[in-house]
């Protein structure tokens, strides 16, 4: 029975006195433990700005099944789901959020191991192959000077007295070797590295990238995927884990990043790394704690100290894990969760509207 989720209302605190954060809304079900009176403030807005009342963030409570359509004049948003640590529930959250919206575009950018399709079960109707630049070396023109080898930051070319060797898996496709070759012995070739699949799952426009096995460069595939981002609906991006290039490529230009973590020392450590990245990219963000109850309170304490909005806590639940293992999204098992995700979405919308009202440019990825 103790599986109710809690959505904690977020409200940016700007002016002292008035600024006591109040958890305006919460999703309490009968018999559920009370939600602690802790909500978190957003990072401070530029000083001197007076916040219109309409931009006060509140999580109003649409009933389950009701669809949040955004406030008047709302625009469609790009929301990325990321995490430092892997296995915290990015895909679960992304899928649940997508299913809670009436319609949206879902991008599975975890191209090294895309798995959202296991839950959304889309029909695929279009495939686009993705390639990257690869040098083609004409050995008959090569003088074995070694210029290409010495400029290659990734050591993808070795040049010996009588031969030259290219290691395609190490090549990042920068084309530096082509530029420096004094003999013009290197031409611009292309290597297929993956595929993008487009389709639909009910009212969700589905896009996923699949990197070929053995390839290491995920970013070109993700970059191509993001060119397919639609302007006429909300976009949910399921990012790869970690903080490296594929993550940056996935989340950059988003309106908002949801960082999913677990309340463990590993979760906290990697959350901090992810927060550094998102702050560097200047994208508004909030945290979701998944499997709440398995660890300790240090993630909550960290969020509080850092003024990071803690938008949702999903308690650890065997039922959710079992459904997951069968490819069933959590919102399909517990329809009441949809309300919490609507509420989450609503909260994100208000944060974004607030930022935009303050003149913050967001959503550059389209």
């Amino acid at each position, binding site marked *: 029975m103790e599986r109710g989720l809690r959505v904690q209302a977020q409200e940016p605190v700007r002016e002292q006195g008035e600024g006591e954060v109040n958890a305006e809304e919460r999703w309490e079900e009968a018999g559920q433990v009370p939600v602690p009176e802790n909500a978190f403030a957003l990072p401070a807005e530029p000083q001197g700005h007076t916040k219109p009342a309409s931009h006060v963030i509140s999580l109003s409570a649409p009933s389950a099944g009701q669809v949040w359509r955004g406030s008047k004049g709302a625009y469609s948003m790009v929301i990325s789901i990321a995490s430092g640590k892997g296995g915290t529930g990015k895909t679960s959250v992304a899928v649940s959020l997508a299913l809670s919206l009436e319609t949206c575009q879902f991008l599975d950018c975890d191209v090294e191991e895309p798995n959202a399709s296991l839950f959304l079960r889309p029909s695929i109707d279009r495939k686009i192959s993705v390639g990257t630049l690869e040098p083609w070396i004409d050995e008959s023109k090569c003088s074995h000077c070694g210029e290409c*080898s010495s400029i290659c930051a*990734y*050591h*993808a*070319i*070795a*040049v*010996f*007295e009588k*031969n030259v*060797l290219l*290691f395609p*898996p*190490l090549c990042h496709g920068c084309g530096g070797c082509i530029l420096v070759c004094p003999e013009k012995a290197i031409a611009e070739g292309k290597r297929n590295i993956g595929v993008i699949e487009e389709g639909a799952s009910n009212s969700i426009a589905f896009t996923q990238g699949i990197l070929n096995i053995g390839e*290491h460069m995920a970013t070109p595939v993700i970059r191509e995927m993001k060119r397919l981002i639609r302007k006429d609906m909300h976009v949910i991006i399921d990012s790869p884990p970690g903080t490296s290039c594929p993550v940056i490529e996935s989340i950059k230009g988003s309106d908002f990043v949801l960082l999913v973590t677990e309340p463990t020392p590993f979760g906290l450590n990697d959350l901090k790394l992810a927060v550094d990245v998102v702050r560097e990219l200047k994208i508004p963000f909030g945290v979701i704690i998944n499997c709440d109850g398995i660890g300790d309170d240090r993630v909550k304490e960290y969020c509080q100290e850092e003024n990071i909005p803690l938008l949702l806590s999903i308690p650890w639940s065997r039922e959710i894990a079992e459904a997951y293992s069968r490819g069933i999204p959590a919102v399909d098992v517990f329809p009441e969760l949809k309300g919490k995700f609507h509420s989450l979405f609503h909260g994100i919308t208000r944060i974004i509207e607030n930022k935009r009202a303050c003149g913050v440019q967001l959503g550059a990825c389209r």
Partner: protein
Amino acid sequence: MKLCISSTKNDLEASVDARFGRCQYFLFIDAETMNFEAIENPAFIAGGGAGVQAAQLVVNKKADVVITGNVGPNAFEALRAAGVKIVTGAQGSVKDLVEKFKKGEIEYAAASSVETHYGAGR
């Protein structure tokens, strides 16, 4: 005959480094005179391509034989293409390995001994 031995330190008493691409030092040793040159491996903590980088260095230094613990596939292919002979599975001190080499108590490897990223500490 010029040997290249992957080494944990920059002298002949040091023990061989089990990693080729990500060893600490390369000792280039003249087997006859025992004169040697120690070079710190620039790819010690490289993200990728350490083996190819190391192979390029070995070939540029004109070594004839590489003696090491393990060699990955990229380095193996590069060394073989350049005609450098490879000994894997080496243990003990660099000095002893040179002696063994001189006595012919070594066997050349026919294939790489580990996968890529073997010595990367992950």
